[in-house]
């Protein structure tokens, strides 16, 4: 502002000087005349006459001054004129501003989400160096199969990373400050916080050089937990808490808003971090030295000066060496490899494509809105043709008029953008609640300067885009012809009419693209939501509890199957006794259909009887432990053999139930019943397949054919327990009831997360549902705008051809012919729009094929239905003006 002020002052001084100079000129001229003998009055008058219009001279002289000041001044003038012009046609201005407000508002809203999730740097210093490390089995297409302690050490020593820290999320039971509650716990290496380069708000984090085997007894807590469990007690440092009955002392509190980087919502909401050496108690010798996966994966910071590609290349070399060194652990066929994922991609990877899709869709919507406003402007430009001609005739240069018109459209779009952003700010709180909670960094969504800048640029660009066509038209105005036209003023130039038709065709085409994309998404969603589940989710509620996993195994009340089974039986018995409960079962976390946290150790590395370890068969299978009633409760169908019974215990032979997909995948062409396998590398006894159930979509709504193996909870332990209840009751009350029952048995156990299975399934669709709904909304808006657009063009042609139509009717044309003639014109536009739109839709559909489910990208039904809807609505937009034309009274029309 200071700069502008200085600028204005300098400009004023120069103007004064120039004015003085011109005055002197006049005086000198007059003096000369007096010297030649004229009378003083005569001399002054003549001098002034000779001089000309001094104001004009001043003005055009100033025009020679350097760019910016002139530019600024003219801009100010142009904006003032533009505002005056816009005020003169309030109806037009309101419609145009609202259309643009809609486009800019929607685009900015979507951008604010994209900005917060995909563009904002992650809140860690030099976050570009941070990666997630995952092990894949390329041979079987399995990703993120887990990592072992020796692999972690290999990576630490590789020289590629500054630090590598495993991250192992788990629920935990916290007792100490209050009654038992479930907390999200992240087990990390002591270098975790140093690797992220984050500092606590109180106390300290772990000593990254700490090489204590086992847990070092320190815990860092989140700001949220500090508030919830400790009432922001400033003397928190050094306080003790019981985590799974082990005692930890709190060494630090992370700042508010700090989140653990993670792909999953649970892990991002981590409340307690504990440091672990990934060897030593409670792990036994085997677990910490074996190359069998122990934890899900690790995070790391790449050393300074190494690029991601370079790091990946070196890690590939490391993996290659390890495969040769340990052929039993990494069989050649499994294609074991280590993959580095940029941290951002890991965190937001799941929502990237839906968000980009939304951004593309809203961009189309904005284009359609622009086309609409361009059309309005063109219609008005026709009406203003005379004004433009007059202005050119009296000396307005075409370039100045173009600039004036562009200023008008940019002013218009800026007002629209301003309105859009204002609406967005007003509705911000409401809108954010519509975003599904699964979107990472949701709390970061805000209308910050980046978003505002985007809105400004988008508005300006929109103004130029829709202002260009009418502005360029000015150059083509034939001034003489225009001024000769009499009476009601000008009709549009041929060029203008063609531009308007082109705009409508473009608008229809873009709308069709958007509508077909939306149609395909809706179809996908429907086929997902309506896919036969293969199990019965109605009236099922799930409540979670978790058995402690103390570091000192002698303190573990539930250390063996034999110790855990009575608890499981007792919970089942008590649950069955609750009124309204028809049946009850327990299972491990992985047994919960569709909603189980990924951290569950449900990826089993199985060994098959009679096949060598380094055989050709993939060996990672999803598994869970359940009680016998589980299958019946969920309505899973037994096809062959038998289900578990209460008599399958730790003293009887180990048994397993598998699904058809598992049988097909691992015993193709054979009878899987009676076949033997080991469910982990540590199993000594074989487990026998005793039953085969029908495939169901318990793992993924998208596919029923994922191999699954079930073990009996009475034979194989599960720490995270899901209690399944079928019946008619109220979910929240049930959680309390179950908590009472469980805590009667053991008051140190938390009970949490009651949810109906229906809700869980619907929750797993939240992001998809959200993007579908939003695109649906965009598509409907696009359809409306496009039909308005075609209505405008047809109505305009009709009004322009009133005389011609009058003549036709007077000469005996049937009214139906008139209707047909006008509709044919509309149909031609619709036809062209549809043809182009279909091509665009095919391209768009192919691009989004990865997001579709159960519907081909070129789904004929969707294409046909959506095209029909567009055509019908667009033609309906033509019918109104066509009928008006039909009813035209020839007498009135001809008198004009």
């Amino acid at each position, binding site marked *: 502002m200071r700069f502008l002020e200085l600028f204005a002052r300098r400009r004023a001084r120069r103007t004064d*000087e*120039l004015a*003085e*100079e*011109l005055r*002197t*000129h006049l*005086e*000198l*001229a007059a003096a*000369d005349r007096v010297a030649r003998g004229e009378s003083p009055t005569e001399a002054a008058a003549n001098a002034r006459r*000779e*001089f*000309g*219009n*001094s104001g*004009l*001279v*001043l003005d*055009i*002289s*100033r*025009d*020679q*001054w*350097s760019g910016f000041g002139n530019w600024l001044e003219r801009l100010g003038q142009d904006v003032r004129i533009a505002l005056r012009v816009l005020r003169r046609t309030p109806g037009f201005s309101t419609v145009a501003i609202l259309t643009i407000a809609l486009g800019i508002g929607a685009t900015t809203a979507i951008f604010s989400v994209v900005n917060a999730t995909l563009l904002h740097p992650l809140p860690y210093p030099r976050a570009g160096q941070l990666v997630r490390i995952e092990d894949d089995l390329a041979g079987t297409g399995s990703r993120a199969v887990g990592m072992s302690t020796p692999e972690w050490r290999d990576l630490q020593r590789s020289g590629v990373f500054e630090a590598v820290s495993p991250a192992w999320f788990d629920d935990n039971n916290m007792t100490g400050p209050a009654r038992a509650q479930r907390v999200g716990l992240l087990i990390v290496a002591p270098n975790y916080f140093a690797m992220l380069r984050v500092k606590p708000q109180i106390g300290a984090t772990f000593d990254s050089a700490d090489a204590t085997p086992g847990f070092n007894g320190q815990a860092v807590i989140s700001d949220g937990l500090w508030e919830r469990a400790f009432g922001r007690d400033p003397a928190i440092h050094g306080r003790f808490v019981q985590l799974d009955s082990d005692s930890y002392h709190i060494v630090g509190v992370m700042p508010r808003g700090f989140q653990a980087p993670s792909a999953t919502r649970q892990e991002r909401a981590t409340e307690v971090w504990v440091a672990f050496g990934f060897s030593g108690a409670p792990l036994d010798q085997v677990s910490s030295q074996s190359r069998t996966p122990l934890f899900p994966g690790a995070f790391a910071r790449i050393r300074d000066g190494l690029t991601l590609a370079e790091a990946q290349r070196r890690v590939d070399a490391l993996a290659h060496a390890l495969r040769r060194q340990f052929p039993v652990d990494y069989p050649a066929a499994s294609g074991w490899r280590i993959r580095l994922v940029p941290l951002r991609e890991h965190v937001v990877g799941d929502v990237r494509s839906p968000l980009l899709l939304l951004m593309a869709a809203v961009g189309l919507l904005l284009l359609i809105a622009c086309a609409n406003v361009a059309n309005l402007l063109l219609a008005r430009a026709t009406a203003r043709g005379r004004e433009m001609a007059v202005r050119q005739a009296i000396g307005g240069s075409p370039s100045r008029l173009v600039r004036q018109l562009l200023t008008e459209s940019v002013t218009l779009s800026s007002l629209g953008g301003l309105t859009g952003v204002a609406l967005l700010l007003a509705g911000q709180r409401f809108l954010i609640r519509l975003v599904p909670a699964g979107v990472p960094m949701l709390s970061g969504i805000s209308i910050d300067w980046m978003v505002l800048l985007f809105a400004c640029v988008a508005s300006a660009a929109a103004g130029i885009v829709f202002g260009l066509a009418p502005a360029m038209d000015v150059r083509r105005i034939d001034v003489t012809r225009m001024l000769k036209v009499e009476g009601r003023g000008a009709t549009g130039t041929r060029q203008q009419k063609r531009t308007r038709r082109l705009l409508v065709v473009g608008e229809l085409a873009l709308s069709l693209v958007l509508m077909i994309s939306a149609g395909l998404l809706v179809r996908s969603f429907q086929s997902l939501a309506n896919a036969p589940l293969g199990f019965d989710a109605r009236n099922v509620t799930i409540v979670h509890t978790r058995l402690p996993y103390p570091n000192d195994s002698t303190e573990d009340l539930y250390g063996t199957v034999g110790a855990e089974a009575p608890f499981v039986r007792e919970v089942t018995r008590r649950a069955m006794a609750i009124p309204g409960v028809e049946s009850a079962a327990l299972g491990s976390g992985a047994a919960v259909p569709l909603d189980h946290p990924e951290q569950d150790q449900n990826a089993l590395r199985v060994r098959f009887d009679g096949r060598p370890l380094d055989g050709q068969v993939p060996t990672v299978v999803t598994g869970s432990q359940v009680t016998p009633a589980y299958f019946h409760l969920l309505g899973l169908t037994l096809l062959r053999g038998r289900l578990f019974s209460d008599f399958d215990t730790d003293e009887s032979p180990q048994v397993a139930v598998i699904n058809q997909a598992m049988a097909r995948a691992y015993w193709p062409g054979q009878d899987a019943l009676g076949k033997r396998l080991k469910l982990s590398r540590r199993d000594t006894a074989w487990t026998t397949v005793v039953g085969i159930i029908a495939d169901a979509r318990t793992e993924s709504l998208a596919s029923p054919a994922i191999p699954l193996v079930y073990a009996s909870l009475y034979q194989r332990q599960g720490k995270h327990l899901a209690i399944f209840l079928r019946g008619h009751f109220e979910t929240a009350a049930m959680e309390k009831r179950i908590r009472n029952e469980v805590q009667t048995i053991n008051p140190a156990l938390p009970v949490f997360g009651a949810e109906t299975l229906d809700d869980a399934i619907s929750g797993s669709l939240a992001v998809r549902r959200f993007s579908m709904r939003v695109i649906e909304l965009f598509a409907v808006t696009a359809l409306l705008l496009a039909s308005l657009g075609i209505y405008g063009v047809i109505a305009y042609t009709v009004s322009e051809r009133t005389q011609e139509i009058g003549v036709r009717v007077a000469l005996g044309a049937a009214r139906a012919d008139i209707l047909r003639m006008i509709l044919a014109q509309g149909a031609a536009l619709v036809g062209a729009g549809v043809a182009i739109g279909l091509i665009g839709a095919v391209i768009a559909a192919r691009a989004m094929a990865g997001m579709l489910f159960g519907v081909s990208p070129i789904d004929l039904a969707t294409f046909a239905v959506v095209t029909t809807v567009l055509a019908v609505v667009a033609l309906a937009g033509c019918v109104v003006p066509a009928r008006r034309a039909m009813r035209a009274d020839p007498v009135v029309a001809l008198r004009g």
Partner: protein
Amino acid sequence: MSNSPPTSRIELLQGTLDFIVLQALRWGPCHGYGIAQLIRAQSNQALQVETGSLYPALQRLLRQRAVAAEWTVSENKRRIRVYRLTPKGREMLATERSKWEQLSRAIAGLMLPPAAEEP
């Protein structure tokens, strides 16, 4: 204007005025009115420079740094702004002049055919 018939005046080609103004300043610093008078006198009243052309031309030349301006007090105690050629202005003048000479030779060749071809 009163002492020359309007028909004998020459409309100045665009861009030529700048050249003429520079040319006028060759004789020494001068103010705006003086430049106009100088041009009129030197062209035998044929070139009449409108103020609406002269002052924009001066501002343009100022911006191109072909001339410099300063305020001084004239002999009859009037505050006036005088313009003078800068080195850059002299350079421009030289190139313009050689261009002009080429052009006028060419035009002269077209307008006045060689005597040999006259019948």
